[in-house]
């Protein structure tokens, strides 16, 4: 789209397509500000608008137009920040068409994608992988070594860079090349969930550490309740603790914030009365 002369004045048209450099600038801003100014009304929209601004200014040099568009982009947005990069790139691709309804379309796409992609990002990027590599890094640290941590960070950086690369592809090809694979992504989430569940089963044994301190003496024989129960099922009290907290979280009005205080109070009471050690 070149600058067309209409009447006497040249209408500012802006660039036809965003260059790779423009996209890099947006990405750099977005990774710095994905959840900046987080609030309970619009959640992550502030970082989004600030990040897209340099590119939008190139597409739409007219400030009044931009101001109107940002009214829509400032509305509620909340997704996984890594997937947020891809959604932002998809929105810019739509804005590049300069369709009169581009912003409406982009915001609709954004709203449609933010939930499913947040689910994927939360479960794989934020939880399953960090739990697996975090456990390995923790045990390595307890032995005085940073090897596990280096490994965890390597996984982190690698995945982070994959999302960075993908962002450019989304601008060029549209988000459809990801949404078309929605079934594969669902399969990936399922498969990774299995990995997570296996590791949680293992961590219940190795990381949770709850023991009963109750013992009694019959004749010369001292019986320890903890050993007795572990003889029936290894890590017996760990399993009970997991089950109790799992069910406790289902209680109406319970939140992780409240649960951490409850666990602390219960633990201190159990320790003080000599039931646990």
């Amino acid at each position, binding site marked *: 789209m070149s600058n067309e002369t209409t009447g006497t004045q040249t209408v500012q048209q802006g660039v036809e397509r965003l260059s790779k450099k423009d996209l890099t600038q947006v990405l750099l801003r977005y990774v*710095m500000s994905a959840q*900046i*100014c*987080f609030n*309970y*009304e*619009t959640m992550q929209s*502030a*970082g989004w*608008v600030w990040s897209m*601004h340099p590119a939008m200014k190139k597409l739409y040099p007219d*400030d009044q137009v931009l101001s109107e568009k940002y009214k829509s982009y400032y509305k509620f947005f*909340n997704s996984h920040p890594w997937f947020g990069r891809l959604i932002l790139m998809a929105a810019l691709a739509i804005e590049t068409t300069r369709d009169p309804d581009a912003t409406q379309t982009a915001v609709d796409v954004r709203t449609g994608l933010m939930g499913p992609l947040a689910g994927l990002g*939360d479960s794989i990027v934020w*939880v399953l992988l*960090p739990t*697996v*590599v*975090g*456990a390995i*890094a*923790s*045990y*390595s*640290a307890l032995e005085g070594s940073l090897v596990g*941590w280096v490994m*965890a*960070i390597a*996984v*982190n950086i690698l995945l982070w860079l994959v999302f960075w690369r993908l962002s450019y592809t989304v601008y060029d090809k549209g988000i459809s090349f990801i949404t078309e694979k929605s*079934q594969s992504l669902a*399969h990936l989430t*399922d*498969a*990774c*969930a299995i*990995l997570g*569940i*296996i590791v*949680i*089963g*293992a*961590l*219940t044994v190795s*990381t*949770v550490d709850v023991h009963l301190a109750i013992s009694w003496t019959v004749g010369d024989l001292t019986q320890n309740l903890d050993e007795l129960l572990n003889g029936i099922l*290894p890590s017996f009290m760990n*399993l009970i*603790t*997991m089950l109790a*907290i799992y069910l406790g979280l289902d209680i109406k009005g319970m*939140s992780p*914030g409240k649960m*951490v205080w409850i*666990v*602390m109070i219960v633990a*201190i009471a159990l*320790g*003080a009365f000599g039931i646990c*050690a």
Partner: protein
Amino acid sequence: MFNVFQIVVITLFTALMTWHKYNLQILYYAQVVGIGAFCGLVMGDLNTGLLVGGTMCLMSLGLAGYGGSSVPNYQLGCIAGTVFAIGMGQAGDEALSTALAVGVPVAALGVQLDVLGKMSGSFFIHRAMACSDNCDWKGMATWTWASQIAMLGLNALPIAILMTAGSGAVEMLVNNFPAWLSTGLNVAAGMLPAMGFAILLHYLPIKKYGYFLILGYVLASYAGLSVLAIALIGAVICVYVFQDLEKDSAMPAVAVAGGDMEDE
């Protein structure tokens, strides 16, 4: 107990890590270990830093702010715990007890700080929006970033206060810590990792795949394998299941396409 250099570096580090935790996330995995190590280095005892970092990282596993929720802030807890354990000249198990006594309550209070920080965001977003309405792009950027003063301040200031005005009080508290309370906190340290796992399980398809818990449990308890070994076995199963699911869903398409399985 702390010199000026340590107070300044740890406070700035707390602010930086708070920003990083929400935004950049490039050193996000096992970050509590990294935080423990860094604080250990600044305080001059890397080993204690790793011990506290490793212990508190285990408590943090499975916790993430899903959908804008607030969870215990073990990053903050680890910073407070590590600097006080080392600052009081302790090492080994004694240092860990002190770190837990200081760090776990700080981590729990982190939930409230996070909520306050996110509530403060409303003030800044409305200023930024008003600037945008007036095409004042500089003001928009300024108000957007100004929100970090509140968010980072809410996390970093308590650490700075604890290390300066509060250090005497914390030291007195730790030194006069009743035995029953330290026993209780040790019990809590053993129980708290279960909370992250229990939250995580609520987000996983337990009804569909819950029986895999038994596999992990058996491999860790009866077979006595390490977490890395079990994670590798899990990864193999993960790949197998993924391919199987893909194959099943590809079946009808394959019939139409005449058995071309190789297309990407």
